[in-house]
């Protein structure tokens, strides 16, 4: 145990000493400054460790002057204070190091004094047990802040400092008045004493007003909306290091003291006050940041928002009706939020210090400047936006679960804010990752790196805390695999090694998860994931590709999180893995060309995931089991996330570019397997929630329409798409629409169709995307009009693609037909005939783009620039062959898959097994019809070969001619470009369906985004930048608080 007074005393002494040394040997000041901070940090850390290990049982009480509490001043350092002290000095240390490396402004001794005393003031605020002493420390902090904010001596900094000073003076006046009135009312200044008196029944008619006066003062310092204009100005105008310290440390002390004060003064309306102001600030700030173009101000809005969330959590803590278990959850959430926000925000602000400009566009290209920058930035943004696996994510999870006990609207508020946060942070991320050029950034990156490493290091702690509170268990094997996946990053010097390691890891994962490969739904999907990932990983053979070093780790994380997802037994676990999967895939997509697509993907994923979380919070039990009499909203909320991943209309707007512009090596996984996780999730929702829905049939019907409209519209859009991968993207989404339709049928046959299609879609779409990757790798473009005639250069790929396309189109002898047959049979059996019509039409439209794929890429004229193109690389070719086999074999023997599916459905007692019989002549027999796959295959192959032989025997002399030897009205074609029909292939058809392909969804979503952005823009205008106005806000809001909550 270290006496906290030592921290304060020694720091003060050092400050005075620095003052002396500065006068004589300015260079030596650092020799006092840094050791002091280190000492402070270590001392606090030792205390914290003491508390955590239990060697310090109860809070440390320091009686200054030896007087017992009410008489003398005392410091009261408990677990929270010790933790906060550690945090403050850790952040201060980081900031000091950072500033020192950049060079303190001269005279440096003075700035060191200010810096030291700011940290000390913040620590003192949290340590003190006396109200007046609190005021003194508030003033120390404030004055040090004024000085530090102004320290860069830029105009903006001075302006911000002045505003802060005016507002801060008013707030401290409130605090001072409140404290003195409090003394007058209670006769004491000691917090514990007053708390004891109030808890003991002391009351006074003005006590409420007095407490509110103090709280209002503190709320000003806590930057609640709308009295936080000054704070935003500081974030924007002041030196980023100072801001890091203020936002990362000082404000947290105010937060702690706010909580302490509110709980000592214990008025019933405090929790409402906190909820309203915290929630309002949180939501409004996150929202106002949408259109912010200044990076620092954007971070400022975020900080304010996070504080709002903290205050809201504080409100929950203060609430008398919160059950004890929820209280523990909120406490854990608060700890994690503080930790998360302090480090991520310091990291971000210190990174901002390294970027030249303040505007968002000045950040363009910084991600490619240095790996350290990239790592720190990504980590910090992820954690500050509350994404897994960082503490913020667990905090949000805990907070939501606790708030759910309180009110669903609170959950909605938290999640809405979180979504808004994702929107602008990933807009930031998107702007930052734009640009090919490397931006000029400073190299003062150690401090942000350390901060982000802290965040990474805090992951296990956060997980443990959340797991304890939520009784959440994640499959250990999967966690090990996820950890190992991240280790692959360390092999970043060689892609080949990473590739080999990934293959090994997937094999190891398969070995590890082998016991779970049972004939049930999880086992079914697990098998798909593991086998699929292994095959698709093979095709990512790096060769001479320009892969990012984090490609393989992220790839593996996606794979194993999917494995964890399907093995989940609780909704929490499902959600956690879902989020991990989403965000790892976001990173992968962001590695591609479509940064904006990645942003949209991020936003919609987050929206879906948060909706899902909202749904989970409404569930009575976290276990994935039947839910008694759920409401339709619950079902909708739960399935929304899955629908987003399946890109169901109208949530599809991300899909085209995210698929089309993600790295070519990742797209097969994204389409072939990852989109199936949405299928898995929806299946769970259907099985456990929708099944008990009173309006089940109409819900299902609605989803059925959603599925079939997805299939229809995406197919239609695919027809007019001129980019190979985007075309395949649309096609993929359309196919998943069929799967959703099958699920929505909720009949054994429908599910059989859905599951069959799930597997089969992996085969052909995986194959097509792998082939596309190979083609793009060779040809260098995925723009269809630039290809053509590649059959001459890559016959194997053509053959593979041909079969895949036939399967995709669902034409009989190959495997694709089974899915269609089952689906239509199921549809007609169920009597969803209108849906059946649309589904039929959609699959007819699929022929259009099927032909387009084959023609525009492989047939027609070989373009001049592609004359030297070679066949795809050998690993890709191998994968093509591997994926080819099932297409043919399943075409002849669909029972190879149908039988396992029947067994899986046998486990799903809610559905039962499909009513299918198998006979020798009729093949598969349903209630409606029959289909003999083997016969068709044999007949087709036999007849074809017979005809071929006959032809070869009887035909005229066949001469293979050159590609431009065509009947061209007697003319000689000049170049292949003139002859190739590759652009606008369906322009005539487009004229017919123009009204159907109007991008309504995109327009609507963009309209919503723009409208909200415009509202945010308007709302932000309340921060006029005018000092008088800010002061008026402070007084007005304080009065409002007094008026509303005094009762």
């Amino acid at each position: 145990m270290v006496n906290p007074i030592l921290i304060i005393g020694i720091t003060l002494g050092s400050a005075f000493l620095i003052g002396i040394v500065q006068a004589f040997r300015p260079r030596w000041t650092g020799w006092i400054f840094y050791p002091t901070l280190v000492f402070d940090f270590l001392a606090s850390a030792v205390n914290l460790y003491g508390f955590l290990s239990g060697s310090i049982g109860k809070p440390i009480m320091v009686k200054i002057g030896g007087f017992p509490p009410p008489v003398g001043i005392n410091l009261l350092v408990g677990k929270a204070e010790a933790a906060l002290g550690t945090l403050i000095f850790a952040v201060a240390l980081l900031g000091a190091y950072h500033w020192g490396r950049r060079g303190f402004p001269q005279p440096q001794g003075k700035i060191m004094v200010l810096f030291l005393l700011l940290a000390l003031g913040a620590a003192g605020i949290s340590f003190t047990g006396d109200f007046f002493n609190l005021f003194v420390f508030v003033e120390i902090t404030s004055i040090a802040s004024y000085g530090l904010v102004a320290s860069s001596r830029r105009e903006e900094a001075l302006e911000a400092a002045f505003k802060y000073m005016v507002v801060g003076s008013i707030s401290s006046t409130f605090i001072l008045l409140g404290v003195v009135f409090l003394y007058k009312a209670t006769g004491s200044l000691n917090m514990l004493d007053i708390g004891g008196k109030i808890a003991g029944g002391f009351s006074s008619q003005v006590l409420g007003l007095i407490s509110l006066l103090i709280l209002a003062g503190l709320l000003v310092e806590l930057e609640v909306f709308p009295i936080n204009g000054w704070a935003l100005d500081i974030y924007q105008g002041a030196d980023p290091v100072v801001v890091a310290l203020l936002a990362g440390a000082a404000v947290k002390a105010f937060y702690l003291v706010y909580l302490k004060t509110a709980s000592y003064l214990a008025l019933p309306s405090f929790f409402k006050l906190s909820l309203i102001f915290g929630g309002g600030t949180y939501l409004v700030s996150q929202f106002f940041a949408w259109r912010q173009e200044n990076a620092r101000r954007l971070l400022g809005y975020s900080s304010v928002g996070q504080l709002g969330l903290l205050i809201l959590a504080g409100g929950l803590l203060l609430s008398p009706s919160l059950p004890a278990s929820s209280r523990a959850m909120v406490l854990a959430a608060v700890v994690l939020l503080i930790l998360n926000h302090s480090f991520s925000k310091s990291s971000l602000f210190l990174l901002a210090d390294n970027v030249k400009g303040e505007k968002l566009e000045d950040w363009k290209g910084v991600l490619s400047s240095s790996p350290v920058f990239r790592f720190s930035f990504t980590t910090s943004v992820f954690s500050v936006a509350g994404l897994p696996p960082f503490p913020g994510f667990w905090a949000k999870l805990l907070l939501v679960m606790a708030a759910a006990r309180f009110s669903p609207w609170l959950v909605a508020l938290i999640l809405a804010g979180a979504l808004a946060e994702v929107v602008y942070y990933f807009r930031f991320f998107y702007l930052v990752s734009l640009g090919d050029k490397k931006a000029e950034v400073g190299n003062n990156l150690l401090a942000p790196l350390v901060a982000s490493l802290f965040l990474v290091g805090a992951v296990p702690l956060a997980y443990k805390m959340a797991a304890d509170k939520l009784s959440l268990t994640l499959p250990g094997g999967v966690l090990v695999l996820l950890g190992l996946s991240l280790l692959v990053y360390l092999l970043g010097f060689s892609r080949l090694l990473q590739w080999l390691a990934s293959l090994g890891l997937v094999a190891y994962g398969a070995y590890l998860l082998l016991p779970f490969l049972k004939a049930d739904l999880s086992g079914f999907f697990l098998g798909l994931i593991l086998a699929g990932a292994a095959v698709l990983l093979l095709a990512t053979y790096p060769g001479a590709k320009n892969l990012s070093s984090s490609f393989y780790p992220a790839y593996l994380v996606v794979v194993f999180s999917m494995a964890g997802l399907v093995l989940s037994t609780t909704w929490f676990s499902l959600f956690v893995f879902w989020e991990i999967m989403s965000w790892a895939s976001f990173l992968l997509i962001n590695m591609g060309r479509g940064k904006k697509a990645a942003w949209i993907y991020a936003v919609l994923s987050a929206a879906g995931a948060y909706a899902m979380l909202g749904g989970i919070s409404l569930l009575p039990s976290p276990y994935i089991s039947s839910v008694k009499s759920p409401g339709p909203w619950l079902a909708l909320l739960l399935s929304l996330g899955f629908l987003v991943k399946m890109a169901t209309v109208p949530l599809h707007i991300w899909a085209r570019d995210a698929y089309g512009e993600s790295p070519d090596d990742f797209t097969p996984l994204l389409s072939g397997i990852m989109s199936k996780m949405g299928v898995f999730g929806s299946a769970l929702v259907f099985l456990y929630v929708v099944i008990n829905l009173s309006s089940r049939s109409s819900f299902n019907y609605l989803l059925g329409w959603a599925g079939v409209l997805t299939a229809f519209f995406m197919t239609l859009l695919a027809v007019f798409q001129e980019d190979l991968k985007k075309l395949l993207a649309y096609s993929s989404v359309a196919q998943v629409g069929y799967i959703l339709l099958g699920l929505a049928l909720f009949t054994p046959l429908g599910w059989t169709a859905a599951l069959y299609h799930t597997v089969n879609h992996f085969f052909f779409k995986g194959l097509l995307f792998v082939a596309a990757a190979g083609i793009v790798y060779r040809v260098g473009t995925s723009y269809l009009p630039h290809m053509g005639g590649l059959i001459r250069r890559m016959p194997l790929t053509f053959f593979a693609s041909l079969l895949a396309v036939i399967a995709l189109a669902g034409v009989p002898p190959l495997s694709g037909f089974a899915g269609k047959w089952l689906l239509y049979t199921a549809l007609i059996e169920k009597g969803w005939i209108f849906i059946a019509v649309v589904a039929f039409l959609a699959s007819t439209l699929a022929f259009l783009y099927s032909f387009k794929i084959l023609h525009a890429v492989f047939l027609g004229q070989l373009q001049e620039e592609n004359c030297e193109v070679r066949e795809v690389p050998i690993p890709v070719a191998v994968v093509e062959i591997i994926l080819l086999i099932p297409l043919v074999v399943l075409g002849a023997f669909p029972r190879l898959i149908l039988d396992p599916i029947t067994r899986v459905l046998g486990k799903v007692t809610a559905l039962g097994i499909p009513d299918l019989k198998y006979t020798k002549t009729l093949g598969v027999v349903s209630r409606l019809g029959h289909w003999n796959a083997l016969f068709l295959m044999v007949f087709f192959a036999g007849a074809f070969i017979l005809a071929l032989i006959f032809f070869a025997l009887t035909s005229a002399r066949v001469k293979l001619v050159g590609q431009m030897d065509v009947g061209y009205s007697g003319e000689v074609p000049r170049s292949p470009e003139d002859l190739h029909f590759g652009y606008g292939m369906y322009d005539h058809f487009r004229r017919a369906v123009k009204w159907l392909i109007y991008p309504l969804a995109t327009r609507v979503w963009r309209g919503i985004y723009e409208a909200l952005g415009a509202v945010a823009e308007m709302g932000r205008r309340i921060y006029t930048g005018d000092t008088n106005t800010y002061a008026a806000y402070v007084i007005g809001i304080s009065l409002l608080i007094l008026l509303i909550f005094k009762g």
Partner: protein
Amino acid sequence: MWAKILYAFLTLIGGIAYGLLLGGISRKITARMQNRRGPTVWQNFIDLWKLFRKKTAISHGVMFYLAPMFRLVGGAGTFLLVPVVVGSPYLSNFSFGGDLIVLMYFMVLGCLGMALGAAESGHPHAPIGVTRGLSQMAGYELPFILSVIVLMVADKTATLEGIVRAQQGGILHWHLFTHPFAAAAAFISLLGMMTSYPFQVVLAPQEIAVGPPTEYSSTFLSYMFSGRSVFAVAKYLLFMNLFLGGASNLLWAFVKTFAIFLWPLFITNVFPRLRLEQSVLFFWTWPTFLGLVDLLRIYLVR
């Protein structure tokens, strides 16, 4: 089994011959309608033989080479999946291979294969024709599907046998009369299927030089020719089974298919050509509306 295959083979030959004959008849009738004498009804056989025995042929590649076989096998397969005489062990061919859904998808196979061959020819007209054909297919499939689904739901079966059986017991049990709107829709879409005027923009010899097969010659062309003939017969048979109550013997099959054959023939000779988007939109409006009428009826009655 082998007998069945042999019989199917013979039926196939017969089907091709019948198809060629129908083609000749149509040329003759057209000529008569235009106040000409026209060629003999056997002209198509002569043409076929000439093409078959041409001395040289050119190929543009593997798919180009295989496409006529695709076309022939696709046409033949479609033909053989449709029972000529339901209940007859031999004349129902290979209809055990699949039901109506299978058939509708199998129909596409030949077209798709030929489309690929045409596309490989490298002649721009070929893919233009193919895309027109596919787009037009998207047009006429909608009313056709509507009516087919009407029948499937009404008869609670997806097999052609079942549908034919449901129409037994007199001429008024034919779906042509029990579901007149659906039948009308289907027969209108048959015009599109047969690429007869006014939906003939797919081939458009004057514009895109017969479109898809523009580079095909000689033996290749003869295969496609026979494939198309048998495919047409298959469609007539399908329509016969769907709407005209099937056939109880071969003679009825001839009569009914001939009747169906006359329908597009008479339309084609008196109409000009529509642009593609016009034909697609036409299919998506009037026939679709007709089909919907019956579909709604079925839906509500159920």
